């Protein structure tokens, strides 16, 4: 009873500083805009953005759905590809040596420079967006997971040696668990990268999704509507990040 009460109290203690800061920043933003009579198209006031946010939700629903579903499919695929590749690279060092430079190169490509080319080949549909998300986010997931798997505590490996554990047993008994902190670092970064990838692709071409909506609104200098779309993007990013963090914290509660 008291334990759960303490949990609630510590959660509240964690929550209120950022909430106060956000409110404070919004108030400053609002006041600056109002006091200096900045026109809406240059910098929308928070109240304008929230009004647009509330008013546009219905109109935006199809775009929100497309962006969110692409994002989720792409991110899940990126996790599957990234983790599978990491296991493959670590299980077969020769494959790892051959593929590692490629993964680093892919990691270094700003996807925005590739998306137009991809669109020439794949068109402007859904697939190009999902592929962009996957390519943008799987390398960082893979690199972090590989780091975790290869940097397993040597004393653990000595224990595994003393049990003459096979590679698969080693993986099951200790490597996976020992690598979890790094794996989850990768998954969190991957969530962020996948958001960048998805919106980049939508803004580059096609006329569906929140990214293309932002382009559309900016074309008419409707900056409060454009920023209200950004709120939806932030919302999904934050949810993804929070869910991944929560799963990680649950899996690593005894680490």
């Amino acid at each position, binding site marked *: 009873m008291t334990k759960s009460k303490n949990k609630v109290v510590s959660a509240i203690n964690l929550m209120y500083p950022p909430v106060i800061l956000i409110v404070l920043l919004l108030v400053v933003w609002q006041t600056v805009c109002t006091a200096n009579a900045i026109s809406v198209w240059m910098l929308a006031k928070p109240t304008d953005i929230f009004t647009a946010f509330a008013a546009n939700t219905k109109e935006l629903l199809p775009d929100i759905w497309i962006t969110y579903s692409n994002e989720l499919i792409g991110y899940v695929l990126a996790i599957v590809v990234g983790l599978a590749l990491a296991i493959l690279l670590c299980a077969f060092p020769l494959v790892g040596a051959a593929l590692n430079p490629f993964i680093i190169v892919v990691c270094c490509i700003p996807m925005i420079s590739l998306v137009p080319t991809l669109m020439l080949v794949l068109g402007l549909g859904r697939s190009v967006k999902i592929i962009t998300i996957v390519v943008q986010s799987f390398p960082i997931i893979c690199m972090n997971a590989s780091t975790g798997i290869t940097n397993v505590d040597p004393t653990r490996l000595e224990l595994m040696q*003393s049990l*003459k554990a096979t590679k698969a047993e080693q993986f099951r008994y200790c490597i996976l668990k020992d690598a979890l902190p790094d794996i989850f670092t990768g998954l969190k970064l991957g969530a962020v990268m996948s958001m960048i990838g998805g919106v980049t692709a939508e803004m580059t071409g096609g006329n569906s999704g929140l990214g293309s909506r932002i382009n559309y609104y900016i074309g008419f200098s409707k900056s409060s509507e454009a920023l209200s779309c950004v709120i939806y993007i932030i919302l999904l990013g934050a949810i993804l990040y929070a869910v991944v963090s929560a799963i990680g914290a649950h899996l690593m509660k*005894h680490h």
Partner: protein
Amino acid sequence: MADAVLKTKKIGKSFDTNKGIKKVLDDISIDVDEHEFVCIMGPSGCGKSTLIRIMEGIESPDTGQVLLENVPLPKRPEKSIQKNFGIVFQLDNLLEWKTVYKNTDLPLAAFHMKDKMNSQKRVMEMLQLVGLWDFKDCYPKELSGGMKQRAAIARAMVTDPKILMLDQPFGALDAITRRMLNVELLRIWNETKKTCVMITNNVEEAMYLGQRVIVLSKSPAKIVEEIKIPFSYEEKTGDVTENKEYLSIRGKLQGLIRSLD
């Protein structure tokens, strides 16, 4: 002796370092009899840990061989051979995401002995032996250093190995806990009559636990001296420390260790 459980025959081992090849073990021959408790001492960095790793089949020697019940250990022993060695590491090396029970159970799973050994009963017996049954559902981080090392001993013994190999198991513990665990380990040895080989850097510990203390020289390690500790379990748990013979052996051993450092 014909019935030695574990023998090393003229073991030599070198390592490649950036200053060239460095010999760490030179011609080491040790016989360990059944039910015997052998302690190995030597200056730090002399290769004690390498020696015990070779004796338990985790590393292989460059020259010479290790015989387990007169059968040479292969370079990479299989599970069926490795399970004869119960190993206690310098640090407890428990998996922190497993409970004490699951940690103790791990070797039974790894050696595919769960059915054969009746794992539930066996784990319970071992945890009772080290006095941790009440803590079976705790995670390692909830235990003190001494309790963790006791769990590590239970884990090493759960497969009923022929030999218990202990590599400076109490080195990281404070003096009082260390003393308590020495008492505990001697009791366990007396109850189970398990053959034990232990590396230690502590003269009192070596004399309290060992029936024989083997002293190694600085690297490359050679056997300098073998000292018998001729006291029974009852004497050791009694007031042997006031015994004249005990004191003279201790003085000799201490002098020897100091002269090697």
